């Protein structure tokens, strides 16, 4: 096993899938010769040729619309959206089409495809290179939404997404692209979708998180441990369809729940976790169900480190529910 960065694992996953299955295609803006603006697709055009890894004109609507058509006609398209912030021109194709095709055609037509896109803050990208839009897609039945937080999961979840019979939005935490490293098997393997990962076993407080918030929560949990608070950390990693039973169980375990996301709070994903807990485990709760999230503002630039949840804010919430 080699030690890889998260983006290295994505590249490895793509390469592995393209070697295993001729029908897998990778396309989007600047993914060919340039290898993507983050270099996630580096070397793929070289290895697989211009027919299997190619650049497209500058239209996210065209990218996703064409991907749907390819998927309907037997290919396995992987479409890159350069930044998640630029997915909105394709919103109609994703929400109205990819997500609803199987249902509306009574199962006659399907769109098994993967949309890869880097998301989140931490690179001083300001309003439009930092957003975390997962909630938009998690409110869209028919979509699957996957976010890895480790190199191992990045490759395994990506390969599972590519093998999945339904459209998957695969969101890559760009803040972690090169900042996390880990062992990644060289061969093909998958990590099952709709399973959570227990990052840390703990007894006092349960923290749910995913993507770039996982290392932040790990840091906070380590600090909490020093203060004698034992934190149970769960990486949700498939946001939709969520392993709800796993969430409910983990919430019941400690009776104190915090969810951490970098997206704005209002109507965001953290609220769904709170709602699931309030609906299914309220008798077990010994404290308010808290959310630590980005603020309900657009994403700022210079002050992004104040906007993004950090260990300070997470530990503050952990202590609040612990001492309630």
């Amino acid at each position: 096993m080699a030690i890889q960065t998260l983006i290295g694992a994505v590249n490895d996953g793509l390469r592995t899938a393209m070697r295993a299955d001729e029908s897998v295609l990778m396309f989007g803006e600047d993914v060919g010769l340039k290898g993507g603006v983050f270099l996630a697709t580096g070397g793929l055009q070289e290895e697989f040729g211009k027919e299997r890894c190619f650049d497209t004109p500058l239209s996210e609507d065209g990218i996703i619309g064409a991907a749907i058509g390819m998927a309907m006609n037997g290919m396995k398209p992987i479409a890159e959206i350069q930044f998640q912030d630029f997915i909105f021109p394709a919103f109609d194709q994703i929400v109205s089409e990819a997500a609803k095709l199987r249902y509306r055609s009574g199962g006659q037509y399907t769109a098994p495809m993967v949309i890869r896109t880097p998301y989140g803050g931490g690179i001083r990208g300001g309003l439009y290179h930092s957003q975390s839009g997962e909630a938009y897609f998690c409110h869209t039945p028919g979509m699957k939404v996957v976010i890895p937080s480790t190199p191992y999961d990045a490759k395994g979840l990506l390969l599972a997404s590519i093998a999945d019979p339904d459209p998957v939005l695969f969101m890559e935490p760009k803040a972690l692209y090169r900042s996390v490293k880990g062992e990644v098997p060289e061969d093909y393997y998958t990590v099952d979708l709709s399973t959570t990962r227990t990052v840390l076993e703990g007894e006092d407080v349960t923290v749910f998180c995913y993507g770039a918030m996982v290392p932040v929560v790990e840091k906070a949990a380590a600090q909490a441990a020093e203060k004698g608070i034992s934190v149970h950390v769960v990486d949700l990693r498939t946001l939709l369809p969520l392993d709800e039973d796993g969430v409910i169980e983990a919430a019941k375990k400690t009776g104190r729940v915090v969810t951490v996301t970098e997206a704005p709070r209002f109507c965001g994903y953290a609220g769904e976790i709170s709602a699931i807990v309030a609906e299914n485990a309220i008798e077990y709760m010994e404290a308010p169900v808290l959310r630590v999230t980005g603020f309900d503002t657009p994403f700022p630039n210079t002050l992004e480190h104040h906007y993004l949840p950090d260990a300070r804010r997470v530990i503050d919430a952990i202590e609040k529910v612990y001492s309630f």
Partner: protein
Amino acid sequence: MMQPSTTDPAKITAMHTILNSAGETTDGYDPGLPDEELLHYYRSMKLVRAFDDICLKLQRSGRIGFSIPNLGIEACQIGAASALRKDDWFFPSYRDFGMALYHGVKAVDMMHNMFGNAHDSAKGRQMPVHFSFTDPIKFASISSPLGTQLPQAVGAAHAAKLRGEDTVALASFGDGGTSTLGFHSALTFAGVWKSPVVFLCQNNGYAISLPAHEQTASDGYAIKGMAYGVRAVTVDGNDVFAMREATLEAAAYARAGDGPTLIEAVTFRMGGHSTSDDPSTYVPKEVVDEWAQKDPIDRFEKFLAARGLWDAAKGEATTAECLAEIDAAAKEAAATAPPKLETIFSDVYEEIPAHIRKQGEASFELQKRLGEAAAGDGAFPL
């Protein structure tokens, strides 16, 4: 015969007619088709008209919620469909189902959709006229959001091309559809990829109440091909032969690897936008009267008559036959049960995930305990 370059506007905007209103063909054109095939064209157009007539009655009597009339545009559908093969892809709009009828989709299967019943291939989930068939042709699931099928057609065509197949994808849409983002991205991509797509713009004069000349300031719609380096032609949409030839040529061009074509079929929507729409508030009567002279079935009857294949009695017999077929289909569909409650919860994903399964179970349990939900009246305003 009508293969203009994409850079001569005069050629692109010149209207191609083969069969005129008097039933005569240009330059001694002969379709080279056996009589049965010609009569199949005729019957297909008449079937569309019968389908419309019966649906209007069903809607007026409250049996179905909604239908989309095709009066005046039957030749677009049949002419274009006749030029394609059974292994080609159709990415249709809601005003294209004549293509399905031509290729042998059964009227009763269409009627099941109009009633949204248990035998509807879309399992009663879509509004009427949002068909979806895989057999005998790939008539891809119709969507309501306009223009979305266009880049999908490009993708499907591109997939075929990558595999070295020679199938083409027909993407059909209206004058209004050209303003959508799907139109723009599809033509951009198809132009660059040289995708084997036939873009069929049926300019039927209106997008609901907006006249085609207020939709865009361009000189017609075919000219838009120039913005994308896409071959383009303008065709008389009420002329089944011109439609057939233009589509054949576009398909041949595509199969040869030369790329897409944009066909503008100039025609006219003789009825309302739908069975809920009253066009008299916005379509001038003179315009309707003028187009009534150009009816696509009339002129085809004259053509058939000249070949000894048609007279008034035969025409009436065909009408009666078509009406009977559609009527029987409607009766069968009306007598079919609605879809089962389970169909709400399936097909969101290949496998039903836990949260949806739970919602379904709760719903079945509730129904057992408290009875069925009450149905509304189902009147659709548009």
